[in-house]
């Protein structure tokens, strides 16, 4: 049981690290990677907590949720990368332009 709990903690740790990176880094590719790391953290928590059952078999429902989540994450990453490429093509830099005050 404690192994599963440790994995869950690692997952929360990944989430936090990813959050920090998302906020701090300016380059879009790093931000996208940070999101993916956060996503992996959440999935890790889901799977790990699913392992904490009294029966020998881990609960399969969180696995189904994680697979769904991975599909969503892949689509979202693909979209994010495409947007980033378009933004680079438009502005020449892979960073969010600072909000123009008008």
């Amino acid at each position, binding site marked *: 049981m404690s192994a599963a709990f440790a994995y869950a903690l690692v997952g929360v740790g990944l989430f936090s690290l990813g959050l920090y990176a998302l906020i701090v880094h300016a380059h879009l590719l790093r931000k996208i990677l940070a999101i993916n790391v956060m996503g992996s953290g959440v999935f890790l928590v889901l799977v790990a*907590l699913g392992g904490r059952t009294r029966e020998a078999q881990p609960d399969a429902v969180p696995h189904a949720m994680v697979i769904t989540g991975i599909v969503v994450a892949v689509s*979202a990453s693909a979209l994010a990368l495409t*947007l980033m490429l378009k933004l680079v093509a438009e502005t020449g830099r892979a960073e969010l332009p600072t909000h123009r005050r008008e």
Partner: protein
Amino acid sequence: MGAVFTDIPWGVGLILLPLAGGMICFLWPGIAKIAGLVTAFVVVLSVAGLGWQILDDGVYHHTLGGWGAPLGIDLYADGLSLLMLAATALVGLGVSVHSSGYFEGEYSARFWPLWLFLLAALNALFLSADIFNLYLTLELMGLAAVVLTALMGGRDALSGAMRYLLVTLLGSLAYLLGVALLFHNFGSVDMAILAGRVEASPAVRAALGLMSAGLALKIGLFPFHFWLPPAHASAPAPVSALLSALVVKAPFYILLRLWLEIFGPLSEGVDALLGLLGAAAVLWGSVQALRQTRLKLLLAYSTVAQIGYLFVAFPLAVAAGLTAWSAAAYLMLSHALAKAAMFLAAGNLLRFGGHDRIPDLDRVVQRLPLSTGAFALGGVAIVGLPPSGGFVGKWLLLEAALSQGRWGLVAVIILGSLLAAAYVFKVLGHAFTQASTPHEPRAVPASMEWAALLLAMGAILLGFLASPVLALLGIGDPFVASGVGP
């Protein structure tokens, strides 16, 4: 005929029809406009059918594929879901009509499949009965919305869309973490089952915090609103209408459901915090709106302010639940219709003059009277002047606040209305005067003007329909759950 109506699984149709329509538009771009319009119209009819069924049989319940909770996907619709579906369908129809004139050629081929996909996601969201399905539909909706924002390219739209995408993904992940915690502790993601099992514990509070924060980020509640004005203002006008009217309401609907079903009794302190942030949103958003010189930015900041009103209902609901939640629901509906109308009207003005600078609107009151009228009527609903849906919402909110002696919130509500009047009439005032530099106007198709005007008239009409709408809202008792007061 009654039996035929109640046998059709309207809920499934509401999800599948737009998906099918979207596929058709994607595969055959030549007929995209027609297919899109037809789908939007059929969706309106389906919502009417669902409404009929709910009035006859009570709450709508459907298990997909025969596999119910806790493993399968359930569809559930009570009064609140029905009204959100109706708002989506009506705004959707209006935006579809407007878009048929707004988008041409390649943009049109891209718009219609994406918009119908968004519609399917929205409908699925309002019909969901478990928190994981809500996550899924929320993500789908978010992705579609991001692409729609970036549809016509350009630096502002692309960066607005990118920022929006990162924010929405962050919010979803926080929400999902909360789902994980809840599932682990109580063994189910179905809302009805969770409502019965949940009890106060650190894990549940953590879940409450995570999910609220994630959803607040996606709604654009102050201080998480920074992404909203750039995204809503730089998107094409029909997309802005969809974003402000529907896309920000969906996460609020989820937060409301979670609050009512699961988190309500455990929420001391959090409702006060949400109320405070809502009040700050109302004041900050309204002041910022007043300072803008571009019309679409003004409307985007107005959305930030109006979202704040929805959150003011949270602290009021502790002692006057039914009034406060009815107010929030009514404000949501009214804002959806009114803001969509105003964004569509702004799109017309943009098409007409080539710009949306407020001081240079150049006597549009006589040259585009329908669009100006739409903007004015929508503005009346936003300010909350009678007779309009906004007035009913504001009255109920004030009733809840005054009956509890919450003078601070009363002051915020009134001040917000005055500021809203200031920025709406600032725009209307410029509509009467001549611009300093005249320009050649471009024609605006009548369908675009009428789409805006009819949506605005809907917002006004909502003011006269309070009794039936509030009765409809009560079906399934969404607001009398889990010990939250009368």
